[in-house]
């Protein structure tokens, strides 16, 4: 199967693939919001780092449903793919989207994933895989991507040499208007590829007359008119070709080509005087443009055909001058690139301020090397190469900063070690003493609580005797022991007295038992509050003690490993950056060399033509004089 060359498809697709992450419902996970914040500013590395970490933590959870990211998990999985794509990591993006496809998700989510995967594969020129991915779309399709899916399907059909299929798809009615101009144009091209030139011309004519509201739609309309003009010209219909080319806006990106071709359409129809109008406009435009350079030769040629050889000779002279200047400029550009200036300009901060930096490069002062590289810069592979070079520069800066950070971390750990090491043994010894005392008291409290509990069912008033009562009881026991079994009157009187006193104590402890038990419970409760405070303090101490150890122990191996990884990555970045830089320079120089060769050929042509025109002018003068 013949496949259409698609060298230039890339940028259009890259533009199309730069998708927008979305927060479906209200934000529930702050870190997901943070990833979006970075992504919305075009900081995809930071966005990816944030979201990767968040997703990894989510996947490690035992109950991910309880995590706040759970509310956004589908968005998050898609966003990873989007960010990777925007960060030009197509391989990982493909894998991320495949993971969504293979997960247990509903039809709408799976179909959107299949569509995104198909777009990546299409961009990477894996057309069969792209088609297979589209074939996985079944069931409910989100309404907002329905047209995009069909448009992609048609593009794949065209790229795989099946324009007939593309025509069928592109002819289907569409719900949205955003694709109208693109569909109309692509349908015209598909019809032409399908060997239906008449229908193709009619379709491109329609596309060239569509209402256009924004600059992109206007540009597509101009493009349709330009291609239509080309086709009509080739079929020999110069009048219609001219009309079509006249519809291209004079200020649009296609105006130079349209003016050039409009001139050729007139000149081919032998209307040289009418060809002068567009070519004269063109001759005053930006001299680095290839259409302008071509017009510089075409214009005197038209004057020569009108037998105005003197005017032709002057204009050929002007063309010669322009070519010389432009060759010098191209030489300067090549020299500048060889001196490494182009790469220096690329990494200038001001050239990276916004997404149009590639375009803005051209207007940078002292950057002659970019004058002739617009076409190259608009090609997808070169753009990717430039962006990659900038990404490498950014990675290098990060790695260098991390190297410093790791050194600082090692320092922090060393200082923390120096601070804590001498303190901790003494602190630990004090803690051990306090800990054993605390445990003893806690044990006592527990014992008391158990005893009080037991006294609820088996009253033991003696347990609640005051210390005075206990001491009095002990003294009475001593007295009774001293009296012994003596039967003397004095001993008997003393024994009775002791018994009365013991009775008084017993009376008091028994009658006050309930009151005392209640008071004991109240005291135990108060004690519990103190024990709780003590336990909190104890736990806080244990955490702080652990944190002290964790703040400097166990990092050495990790820091060393990270340091090695950073070093290795830095080396790889340096090597690949040099290769990438050389590649960019070589491609740019090749491009400039091509333009130089073309300018040289035009210069030779102009040189011959100027001599020829002077001869003809000189011959025409005597003839005039004779008349």
């Amino acid at each position: 199967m013949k496949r259409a060359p698609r060298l230039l498809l890339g940028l259009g697709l890259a533009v199309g693939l730069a998708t927008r992450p979305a927060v479906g419902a209200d934000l529930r996970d702050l870190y997901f919001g943070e990833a979006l914040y970075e992504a919305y500013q075009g900081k995809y590395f930071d966005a990816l780092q944030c979201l990767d970490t968040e997703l990894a933590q989510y996947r490690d959870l035992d109950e991910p449903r309880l995590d706040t990211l759970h509310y956004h998990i589908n968005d998050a999985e898609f966003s990873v793919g989007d960010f990777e794509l925007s960060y030009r990591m197509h391989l990982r993006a493909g894998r991320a989207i495949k993971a969504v496809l293979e997960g247990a998700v509903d039809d709408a989510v799976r179909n959107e994933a299949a569509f995104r995967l198909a777009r990546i594969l299409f961009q990477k020129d894996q057309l069969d895989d792209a088609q297979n991915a589209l074939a996985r779309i079944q069931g409910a399709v989100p309404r907002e991507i329905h047209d995009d899916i069909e448009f992609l399907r048609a593009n794949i059909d065209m790229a795989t040499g099946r324009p007939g299929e593309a025509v069928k798809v592109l002819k289907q009615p569409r719900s949205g208007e955003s694709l109208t101009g693109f569909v109309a144009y692509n349908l015209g091209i598909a019809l032409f590829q399908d060997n239906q030139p008449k229908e193709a011309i009619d379709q491109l004519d329609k596309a060239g007359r569509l209402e256009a509201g924004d600059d992109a739609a206007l540009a597509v309309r101009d493009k349709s008119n330009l291609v239509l003009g080309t086709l009509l010209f080739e079929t020999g219909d110069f009048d219609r070709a001219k009309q079509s080319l006249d519809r291209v806006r004079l200020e649009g990106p296609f105006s130079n080509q349209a003016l050039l071709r409009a001139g050729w359409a007139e000149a081919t129809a032998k209307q040289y005087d009418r060809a002068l109008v567009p070519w004269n406009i063109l001759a005053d435009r930006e001299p680095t443009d290839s259409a302008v350079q071509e017009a510089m030769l075409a214009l005197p040629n038209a004057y020569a055909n009108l037998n105005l050889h003197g005017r032709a000779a002057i204009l050929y002279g002007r063309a010669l001058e322009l070519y010389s200047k432009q060759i010098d400029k191209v030489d300067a550009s090549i020299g500048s690139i060889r001196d490494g200036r182009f790469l220096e300009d690329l990494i200038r901060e001001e050239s990276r301020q916004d997404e149009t930096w590639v375009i803005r490069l051209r207007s940078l002062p002292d950057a002659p090397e970019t004058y002739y590289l617009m076409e190259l810069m608009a090609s997808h592979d070169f753009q990717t190469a430039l962006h990659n070079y900038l990404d490498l520069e950014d990675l290098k800066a990060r790695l260098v900063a991390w190297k410093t950070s790791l050194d600082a971390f090692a320092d922090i750990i060393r200082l923390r070690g120096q601070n804590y090491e001498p303190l901790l043994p003494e602190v630990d010894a004090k803690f051990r003493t306090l800990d054993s005392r605390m445990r003893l008291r806690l044990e006592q409290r527990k014992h008391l609580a158990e005893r009080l509990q037991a006294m609820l069912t088996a009253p033991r008033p003696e347990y609640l005797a005051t210390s005075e009562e206990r001491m009095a009881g002990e003294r009475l026991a001593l007295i009774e022991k001293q009296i012994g079994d003596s039967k003397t009157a004095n001993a008997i009187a003393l024994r009775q007295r002791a018994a009365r006193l013991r009775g008084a104590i017993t009376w008091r402890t028994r009658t006050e038992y309930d009151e005392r038990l209640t008071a004991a419970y109240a005291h135990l409760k108060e004690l519990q509050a103190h024990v709780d405070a003590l336990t909190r303090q104890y736990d806080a101490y244990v955490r702080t003690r652990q944190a002290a150890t964790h703040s400097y122990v166990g990092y050495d191996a990790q820091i060393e490993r990270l340091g090695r990884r950073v070093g290795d990555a830095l080396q790889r970045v340096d090597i690949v950056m040099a290769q990438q830089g050389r590649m960019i320079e070589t491609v740019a120089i090749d491009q400039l060399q091509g333009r130089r060769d073309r300018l040289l050929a035009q210069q030779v042509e102009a040189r011959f033509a100027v001599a020829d025109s002077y001869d003809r002018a000189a011959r025409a003068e005597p003839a005039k004089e004779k008349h």
Partner: protein
Amino acid sequence: MARSSQITNSFAIEPRAGVRYLTLVLAFLLCLGSTHGWAEQGKPQQEKQTKQQQTQQSKQQPPQKNDQKQMRGLDEQIQEIKSDVLSISAELSLLEEKLLFPSGTEVAIFVLLAKGDTMRLDAVRLQIDGKPVASYIYSFKELEALRKGGVQRIYVGNVATGDHQLEVVVEGKQKSGAEFSRTEHFAFSKDVKPKLVGLTLAGPDSGSPPIALGEW
């Protein structure tokens, strides 16, 4: 017909919603436009020129393809490096968090804008327990990112467990251009888990509280 098929093979223009892509689209279209060959029919000189161009193009074809192949090869290497560096970055940020902001003391404060709010946020200043901890002036890009629903982590630091006071000062401009400034005080409590505090900001004409504190 070789030339015309070259023209018509450059078909695929993929549209993209959003103005920010416009310039790149235009560049792409410009590129497509300039690649078309064109020659005046019936003019030998021009035909010769076209043939020269075609010969040059066919001569250039193999190196171009080689360049493309090399570019793609390098692109894959760069993707691998990016992947590696991302993984280093993830490990490093976990290490950093563990070392500098242990969960027992970590507090992170985030700023988000109320949905659909149109105020122009200029600056936010934060104080915890009377000490200034963060002061941020917003760029246009950052403000746009907040308006789209992004969340900024404005501060991450350490506080002891227990109760704390947070003072938030917000400065900005209303839709009318009038300047405004709001100060609010909040209390938050830090326990052993990392503390995440979200500040939702809204302009005076939104009807929502100018600064609302949410805990995550």
